[in-house]
C-alpha cells in the first residue's frame, strides 16, 4: 500500500473533485430534468418538441463527446469562463472542471427527465381525470395530485440515473479533470506492480458513493411508502 501513503494527499483531492462534480452535476440534472419532464407533458407544442428533441439528441450522443464539445468547442466561440473562487489554488479547480461538470449535468438531465416522465405516466388515469373534474388547472393537477403520487414511482429510476452519473463522472479523465479516474490512471502508471490493489480500492471508492445514493433512496422510499 506504498502507493497510497505516498499519494494520500492527491488521492483525497481527487476524491473531493469527484464528489464535488457529482454533487453539482446531480443538482443540475435534477432541476433541469424536472423542467424538461414538465415541458414534455405540457400543453404547449413547442415546449414538448424542445423537450423531446433534447432528450433524443443527448441520449444518442456519447458523454465523452459532449464533454469534449464543451471543453474544446465552446472556447472556439471565445467564451472562456473566468473563475473567481478565492482559494482556487487549493482546490485546483480549472476551466475543464466547469465544462466537464456542466456536460455531466446536462447529459444526466435527459435520463432524469425520462425517469420523471415515466413516473408521471405511472399514476393511474383516474387521478388526473378526477383532478381535472374538480376544476384544477394543468399546473395544479400536476403539483397537487400527480407529482406527489409520481414521487414514489420516480424515486428508483431517478436514483438509477444518479448512480449511472456517479460512474460516468470518471469519463472526465478524457478532458483532463484531475478527478478519481485521472488519479487512478496516474497511479497505475507510477506503480504498475500494485495495479490490482489500486483498481480495487478505486472501484470500492465509487461503490461507496453509489451506496450513499442507494441508502438515501431507501430512506426516502420508506418515508414515501403508503402505510
Amino acid at each position, binding site marked *: 500500500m506504498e502507493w497510497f501513503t505516498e499519494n494520500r494527499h492527491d488521492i483525497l483531492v481527487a476524491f473531493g473533485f469527484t464528489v464535488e462534480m457529482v454533487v453539482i452535476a446531480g443538482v443540475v440534472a435534477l432541476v433541469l430534468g424536472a423542467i424538461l419532464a414538465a415541458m*414534455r*407533458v405540457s*400543453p*404547449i*407544442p*413547442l*415546449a414538448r418538441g*424542445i423537450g423531446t428533441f433534447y432528450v433524443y*439528441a443527448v441520449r*444518442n*450522443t*456519447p*458523454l*465523452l*463527446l*459532449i464533454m*469534449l*464539445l464543451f471543453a*474544446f*468547442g*465552446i*472556447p*472556439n*466561440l*471565445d*467564451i472562456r469562463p473566468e473563475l473567481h473562487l478565492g482559494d482556487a489554488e487549493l482546490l485546483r479547480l480549472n476551466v475543464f472542471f466547469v465544462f466537464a461538470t456542466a456536460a455531466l449535468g446536462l447529459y444526466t438531465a435527459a*435520463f432524469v427527465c*425520462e*425517469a420523471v416522465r*415515466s413516473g*408521471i*405516466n*405511472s399514476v*393511474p388515469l383516474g387521478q*388526473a*381525470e378526477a383532478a*381535472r373534474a374538480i376544476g384544477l*388547472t394543468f399546473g395544479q*393537477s*400536476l403539483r397537487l395530485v400527480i407529482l406527489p403520487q409520481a414521487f414514489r414511482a420516480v424515486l*428508483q*429510476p431517478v436514483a*438509477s*440515473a444518479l448512480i*449511472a452519473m*456517479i*460512474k460516468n463522472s*470518471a*469519463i472526465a*479523465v*478524457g478532458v483532463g479533470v484531475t478527478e*478519481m*479516474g485521472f488519479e*487512478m*490512471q496516474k497511479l*497505475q502508471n507510477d506503480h504498475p506492480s500494485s495495479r490490482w490493489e489500486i483498481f480495487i480500492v*478505486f*472501484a470500492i471508492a*465509487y*461503490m461507496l458513493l453509489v451506496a450513499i445514493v442507494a441508502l438515501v433512496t431507501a430512506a426516502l422510499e420508506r418515508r414515501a411508502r403508503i402505510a
Partner: protein
Amino acid sequence: MSSSVLFDEPGPRARVRFRLYNGVFVLVVLGVIALVLYKFNAAGQFESRIYHRLSENGVITELRRGLVATLEAAGLAIAVALLLGIVLAVARLSDHRWIRVPATAFVEFFRAVPLVLLIIFLFGLAGATSPMSGWDTRTQGLAALVTGLMLYNGSVLCEVFRAGVNAVPKGQAEAAYAIGMRKNQVLRVVLIPQGVRYMLPAIISQCVVALKDTSLGYIVLYPEFLRGSRTVAQYAGSFLVTYLLIALVYIAMNSVLSLLAYWAERRISQRGRGAARAVEHVEEALAAG
C-alpha cells in the same frame, strides 16, 4: 396514462392562452438561435475555410477510418458481450449455489465499477502481461476497450436475459418438465426461444449503449471516431464544428439502432403478450447505465 389527460381539450380562452405561451416560447427559442448564430459568426465559425477543409478527401478518409474503428470495436464488443451475457444468465439461473453465487458476484461487481476505470486498468494490464505487451498500442487499446465493454455489457445483458426468461409464463416450464424434458432442455428448447422475443428491445437498447461507450477508446488511445476527429478538428481549425458534426453521425447511427428496437417492440406488442412489460421495467432501470 397519456399526458393529454393532464389538461382538458382547451376551450377558447385556454386556446388563446396556449397560443400566447407558445408565442413566448417561439420568441425565446428564436432569441437563443439568433444568439448562437451571432456567436458562431462573431467567432468565425461560419468561415468557409473550416467547411472546405472538412470536406477535403483526406479529411473524409481520416473520419471514415475512425468510424470504421468505432464500428469494429462496437461489433466485436457486442458479439462477445452477448456470449458472456448468455453464459452468465445460464449460470445465474442455475440450481447449483456454487455456480449461481459467483456469477451473481461477478455481474454485480462489473455493473458497479465505472467502465472507464475498468478500461484504463485493462489497458495497463495488457501492457504489462507477456503475450499482450508486444502488441502495438492500437491492438492493446482495442483489447482493453473490447474486454471492458464485454465485461460491463455482458453483465447488463445477463440481467436482461434473466428477466426475459423469467417473463415466460410459469406454465411453460412446468409443462416442459411434465413431458419429461431435462433442465437444460427446458431452458434451451422452451424458455430461451420464447424469452428472446421479450428481450429483443432491451438487447438493442444495450447495443446503443455499447456503441456510445466505444468512445471511451479515446482514453486508451484507440484511434476510434473521437480520437480520429481530434486531428481533423485541429486541421479544420474548429473543434466546435467538427464535434457537432461527429455528434450528428452518432445520433444517426443510434437512430438506426433505435428504429430496430422500435420495430422489434412493435412486433412483440402485436402478438399481445403482457410479459414484455416485465422486460420493459428492467430496460428502464438499465437504460440509465
